[in-house]
């Protein structure tokens, strides 16, 4: 009998849905990826976490989170995914009774970057709520993907979950993949998801130009407005500053 060790995990292929849009060459260079980070929020507690994924140019970075939120507990996670040739952040979340998970994330990609956010949120018990708000801005030949599944167990009545995903393409060569997925076994459930892929509003750009704004300033202002809100409720001001200035710096390089 042989045991497959963790180190011998086979490299994923595109046939696996959750790796379908990934940069597998970049992944191969760092395979096997680090073990997942576990976050356990105890019953009744409230926790705040964030990740600024700003790996260096050409690097690959994969972050896996396995999260358990116990009864009546709450986790707020803020994510900015902007670095590396391949940057992937994956969440596997299990919610207890009356628990809440909130993910606010932004992807800003340029060059040949492949950036992705993968979520699997399981409402295992009744009365849990979850919200995911993702904004992606993609320019040049970048690819940004959001694959998110919400799984509602048979007993998880009164589940309330939403996914709001919007992507903005700055160039015709950029790609956005958005795939919300629901798997529901309970019958008293509210699950809402909305996904849009758009471009900068040309009318707004002309209006701004007609007032004297140069094109780079106008674009930056519209893009800031597009991602505004993602980091609004970061409690720690220093963290908020760091996320917002990293996002702005990346935007300014992009326009």
């Amino acid at each position, binding site marked *: 009998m042989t045991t497959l060790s963790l180190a011998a995990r086979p490299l994923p292929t595109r046939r696996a849905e959750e790796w379908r849009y990934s940069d597998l060459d970049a992944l191969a260079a760092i395979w096997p990826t680090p073990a997942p980070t576990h976050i356990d929020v105890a019953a009744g507690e409230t926790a705040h976490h964030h990740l600024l994924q700003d790996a260096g140019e050409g690097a690959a970075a994969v972050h896996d989170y396995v999260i358990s939120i116990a009864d009546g507990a709450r986790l707020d996670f803020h994510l900015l995914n902007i670095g590396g040739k391949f940057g992937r952040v994956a969440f596997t979340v299990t919610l207890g009774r009356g628990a809440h998970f909130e993910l606010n994330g932004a992807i800003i990609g340029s060059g040949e970057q492949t950036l992705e956010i993968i979520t699997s949120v399981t409402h295992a018990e009744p009365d849990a709520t979850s919200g995911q708000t993702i904004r992606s801005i993609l320019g040049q030949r970048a690819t940004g993907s959001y694959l998110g599944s919400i799984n509602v167990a048979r007993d998880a009545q009164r589940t309330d979950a939403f996914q709001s995903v919007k992507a903005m393409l700055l160039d015709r060569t950029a790609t956005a993949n958005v795939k919300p997925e629901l798997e529901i076994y309970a019958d008293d459930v509210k699950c809402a998801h909305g996904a849009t892929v758009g471009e900068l*509003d040309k009318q707004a750009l*002309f*209006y*701004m*130009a007609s*007032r*004297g704004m140069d094109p780079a300033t106008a674009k930056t*202002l519209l893009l800031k407005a597009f991602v505004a809100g993602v980091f609004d409720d970061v409690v720690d001001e220093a963290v908020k500053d760091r996320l917002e200035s990293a996002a702005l710096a990346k935007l300014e390089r992009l326009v």
Partner: protein
Amino acid sequence: MMLTIENLTNEIDGKAILKGLSLSIKAGEIHAIMGPNGAGKSTLAYTLGGRPGYQVTGGNASFNGVNLFSLEPHERAAAGLFLGFQYPVEIPGVSNLQFLRESLNSQRKACGQEPLSGGEFIKLAKEKAALLGLDMEMLKRPVNVGFSGGEKKRAEMVQMGILDPKLAILDETDSGLDIDALKIVGAGINAIMRKPDKAVLLITHYQRLLDYVKPDFVHVLAAGRIVKSGGPELALELEREGYAEVVAA
């Protein structure tokens, strides 16, 4: 001469709209362009403003000696051109104050001036908002989002007051205004633009705005050309006789 337009022709999606339009405006003058629907009034405004898709196919326009069509839209604004929109654009997530401060400082930068500080800018914005009777709170809200038709037009005039252009081309600024708002907007245009070194081109369907902003010259635009020019009495004649009568004469 502040603005000289000579034999201007243009097209949108391959369709000719302006067909040899000529017009000259001196500093200190207010001109009104009137005309029936589809004559090309808004097209003239957008073409001078440089809206993408409004292709100049012939003729030229000189603004204070500079070839207007050699400038990008934001450069035209920095050179002193202001375009008042018939339908002001909504920009969710960008406040009026942010929008105007960035616009003004972009213009100042293009002219080699230092940017205005936050305090200086707020003082200027307050003064111009008061002139148009617009609550400062409105300027903290996103650009035109949730504004009524009248509020949008007042906000446009506040923008004009802050940006302080040399030439304002106002495209149906009177549409959507009730009588009280019309008076306020009219008084605002006079206060901001009725000066020896400034000029206004008013584009309108109706005589009523001209009761508040007295034009020095009135032109009739029909089928892409100026077909008749005269003094303020021409507007009254149009109101009385209708366009068909005057255009045919």
